[in-house]
């Protein structure tokens, strides 16, 4: 039986050649199940961002194997011809800063992805509004990004990551600019959405506040990952006002 989430085996990435070559990833192994949220923790320079870029199909690994569900996307070379389409349809991104498109309102920021995938505008907007309702920001649907608070912007960026129902979400320090309450709320949302949409979520973080919320954590150090069971207890402490409807 195939593993349905993300599966990474022996992933390596080398920058440069010869004496100046740097091995950023030295054999990463990871598995994240659908509906699961795992933490990826490590000090600066440990290879977190490189791993995220490889997973996000924006840089090519040097060796190893990656698969999303039943699809092998990398095995000593890309197995997908159109990486842009792969990123659009199979991977959702949540960044440290929300990076919403400043000239689109909240609905169109979220609806842009399905529109790019060819969905009619009205249908894409309907799907976006449904997600915004689920994330409790539907009341700001017509607002411009500059009119939103940091927490609202991050929820909109999560909606954007989810809108094409990708099997994987890569979140790069999504709680860094937020206070404890809002950070926990974002992680709660990611957990809830992961369960609801059967999405595998990898959260790269330094944030001590949210590390205890993960049930499974991958530590990365010098380009090698080590798996560890997390405490998975953060949500009980989170206030009800951040509960996802």
């Amino acid at each position, binding site marked *: 039986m195939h593993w349905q989430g993300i599966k990474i085996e022996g992933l390596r990435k080398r920058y440069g050649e010869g004496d100046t070559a740097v091995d950023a990833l030295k054999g990463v192994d990871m598995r994240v199940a659908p509906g699961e949220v795992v933490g990826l923790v490590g000090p600066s320079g440990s290879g977190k*961002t490189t791993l995220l870029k490889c997973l996000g199909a924006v840089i090519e690994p040097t060796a190893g194997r990656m698969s999303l569900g039943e699809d092998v996307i990398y095995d000593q070379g890309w197995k997908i011809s159109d990486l*842009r389409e792969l*990123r659009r349809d199979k991977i959702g*991104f949540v*960044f440290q800063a929300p*990076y919403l498109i400043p000239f689109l309102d909240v609905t169109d920021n979220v609806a842009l992805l399905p529109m*790019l995938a060819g969905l009619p505008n009205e249908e894409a907007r309907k799907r976006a509004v449904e997600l915004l309702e689920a994330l409790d920001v539907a009341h700001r649907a017509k607002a411009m990004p500059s009119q939103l608070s940091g927490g609202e912007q991050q929820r909109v960026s999560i909606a954007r990551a989810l809108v094409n129902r990708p099997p994987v979400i890569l979140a790069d320090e999504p709680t860094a600019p937020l206070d404890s309450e809002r950070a926990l709320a974002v992680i709660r949302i990611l957990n809830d959405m992961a369960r609801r949409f059967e999405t595998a979520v990898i959260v790269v973080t330094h944030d001590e506040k949210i590390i205890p919320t993960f049930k499974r954590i991958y530590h990365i150090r010098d380009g090698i990952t080590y798996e560890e069971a997390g405490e998975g207890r953060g949500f009980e402490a989170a206030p009800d006002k951040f509960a996802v409807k």
Partner: protein
Amino acid sequence: MISLAGRDILHSWGKFVFTGVGLGLLIGVTLTMAGVYRGMVDDGKALLDNSGADLWVVQKDTLGPYAESSSLYDDVYRGILGMPGVARAANVTYLTMQVRHGETDVRSMVVGVVPGGPGEPGQPGYLIAGRQITRGHYEAVADVATKFKLGERIQIRRNIYTVVGLTRRMVSSSGDPMVFIALKDAQAAQFLKDNDAIVHQRRRTSANPTYNRPGVPGLLNSVIASQSINTSVNAVLVQILPGFTPEEVAEPIRRWKRLQVYTRAQMEDLLIRKLIATSAKQIGMFLVILAIVSAAIVAFIIYTLTLGKIREIAVLKLIGTKNRTIAGMIMQQAVGLGIIGFVVGKIAATVWAPFFPKYVLLEPVDAAWGFFALMVICVLASVLAIRAALKVDPAEAIGG
């Protein structure tokens, strides 16, 4: 799919509108330059139309009377009247000078015509006020662009003239308004000297033993009298009889009178190809420079706007936006900027054209070509920004 370019323009409309207004003023100048050229051509054609002539008879081997000076004896027209196919012939003189009007000078082309009615060659074709010149001396008909009023008195050289009629669109090829006076006055004005110069000339002539011979009474007076008379005109304007072609009439005059004769088509060619050719080149150079400056401005603005959106472009690329979509967005913005600029430029040129001292003719066809050229410039100018955008690595959105 929504229009990313349109949304961006709407979002930062102030930036686009103000930039578009700046570009528009430049385009307005460009359209006006083209209008100045068209105005010069139209002035030249108006000059020919309003002269009422079918043929221009001028001094042999000259391009007169507009492109070069030409001098004919004022009795030449009598011989021309006898040539086959000639209906009417009239002398005419042209003299560009400052006409004194109160405390100010008005640069005008003073035209000497034989007093007569409308339809005579050289006469102003129509009047908008007053009457034609009927007396032999000291009456004038002026183009309204001179700002002279009926009954006003103007000074040409030492003589005072009364404005008895006003006409319109009677200008020289360089756009100076015309003032019509009687031919004899115009001939005198061309060579009229001040009193001191006349006294000095008479003294010099009296001192010359060739003219002041003791045994030849009356010779000195005759010579002095001939020095103060001008028997030259610049051209003879000819109207031909129905049934004759201009060339049929022109050829015998050239052959038998040993004079240069130009038809309407030849004269138009002379005016446009020779008289205003340098000005046209000058304007053409301006148009080229303005086009380059417009392109540089559009390129710079679009490039700067694009660099300001590098992070958004990286995110768009990361989430799967096609390069074509991003290039289209930038190109549409450049074109949008061009459209704003064109609208502003066309309005600006239309508003300020009447205030120019010379005639500015804004032709729709020039505006259409201008719009087309601007769109091409905008598309080319966006290439630099598109190149920068396509180089953006989607990995920049992830950071690290």
